[in-house]
């Protein structure tokens, strides 16, 4: 079981979270992109330190989580203010 000490909600299994699909808010103007389709669909998915949005449904809180996508190690978690 992979768990981490989260702010506000304490130690939790990562199984309690779901991950957000669209991680960044859609900007009003697309910057330098090949096409809208590429902007929508292309992903970075190599082993890396990723910043992800995680939702914890029983507390209804969103967190920004930094995670190693090769080892599943979590480096940090912060509540998303709002």
């Amino acid at each position, binding site marked *: *079981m992979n768990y981490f000490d989260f702010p506000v909600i304490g130690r939790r299994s*990562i*199984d309690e979270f*779901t*991950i957000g699909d669209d991680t960044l808010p859609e900007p009003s103007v697309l910057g330098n992109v*090949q*096409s*809208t*389709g*590429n902007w*929508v*669909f*292309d*992903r*970075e*998915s*190599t*082993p890396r330190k*990723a910043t*992800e949005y995680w939702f914890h449904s029983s507390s209804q809180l969103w967190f920004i989580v930094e*995670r190693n*996508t*090769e*080892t*599943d190690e979590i480096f940090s978690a912060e509540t998303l203010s709002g």
Partner: protein
Amino acid sequence: MSIRLLKHAFIENYAEPCWFNTPSTLKDTYDVVIIGAGGHGLACAHYLAQDHGITNVAVLDASYLGGGNTGRNTTIIRSNYLTPEGVRFYDASIQLFKELSLDLETNIFYSERGHYTLAHSSATLRTARWRAEVNKHLGIKSEVVGTDEISRGCPELRIDCGGSHAIEGALFHAPGAVARHDAVAWGYAKSASARGIEIHQHTPVIGLEKDSEGVSAVITNKGIIKTRNVLSAVAGHTPTVTGMLNIKSPIEIFPLQACVTEPIKPWLDTIIVSGSLHLYISQSSRGELVMGATLDPMELHSRRSTLGFVTSLCDQILDLFPFLSGVKINRQWGGMADMTPDFAPIMGTSPVKGFYIDAGWGTWGFKATPISGKTMASTIANGINDPLIQSFNLSRFGDFDLVGEKGAAAVGH
């Protein structure tokens, strides 16, 4: 009785010739370099030689052949897709599979079992009908069946599903089959090897180079290869390889896990899939129940197993087969799956000339092994996408022209 077995019996110390070569050094140049000695890469090598006479080919693998998703999947073969392009592609695969044992002179244990995709709600039943109608129109044997027919096909299955979300019907796909995954990879390796294609195991690719004319070299731990044609057939690692040429793709890597029980006497002759319970199960010719579930929910580049996977799978399987409580899980394992936004593969040409992609297989693409090899071989030989894979090109995402499989986003393996 096979002459081949008699030879084993009566010739002392008899062994057949090596199934595949194990060359120790790389040549400086090849006409085609295939990255990934899994089923797909080896099938492509075989068809390059057989259909196109191209044999100056090296197949490279970071580890041993067939050790990636080829050796980790649960070997289900079916063609009950939702879109005409999907159905045609996978049906062509089934046709090749059926002849494969003879073609490769290797028994791949291709075994038609019948494939039930269970529907636990009227909404899933509706989607099942959609698939069935598309399949029937395209000449594929699929139909929606009621619970009585399911019980006839698999009397052990508990229709009331333990008291909640009872089974209402199923999509029955008679040609649904299983095959011995390793044998498919080895058979293709044997055939490609016999035609002079080199298979280099334990030869990881660490870089790719391109020049004004397209892809130009493959850098490995054993040296640099000059070539103008490179196929990436490394499902599970595709973004790493495409990243070497700065090619972006929508592929995301998610873990997919499976497990087997101890061998028990066969009682399950069909393949059972339940999307809402997230599981599929069949029984192998060794007597093991082979079981799997959906993808793990988060991106991960690791083949680790989780306890959560096997506990939730066991929790669910008892809804369908309550008598399995005392049957024991022997082994679990994991692999990495290339996921695409429209649940269809990414195949063919890429923005870099001479660099071809065979990826995005989702739940591992075992069922597409022969046809992906054949169509990728024709694509590489001709430099243009084979008609059968035209709709699967990487460019579709930029063009907003996705494949319609996502329409019925139900689980199936």
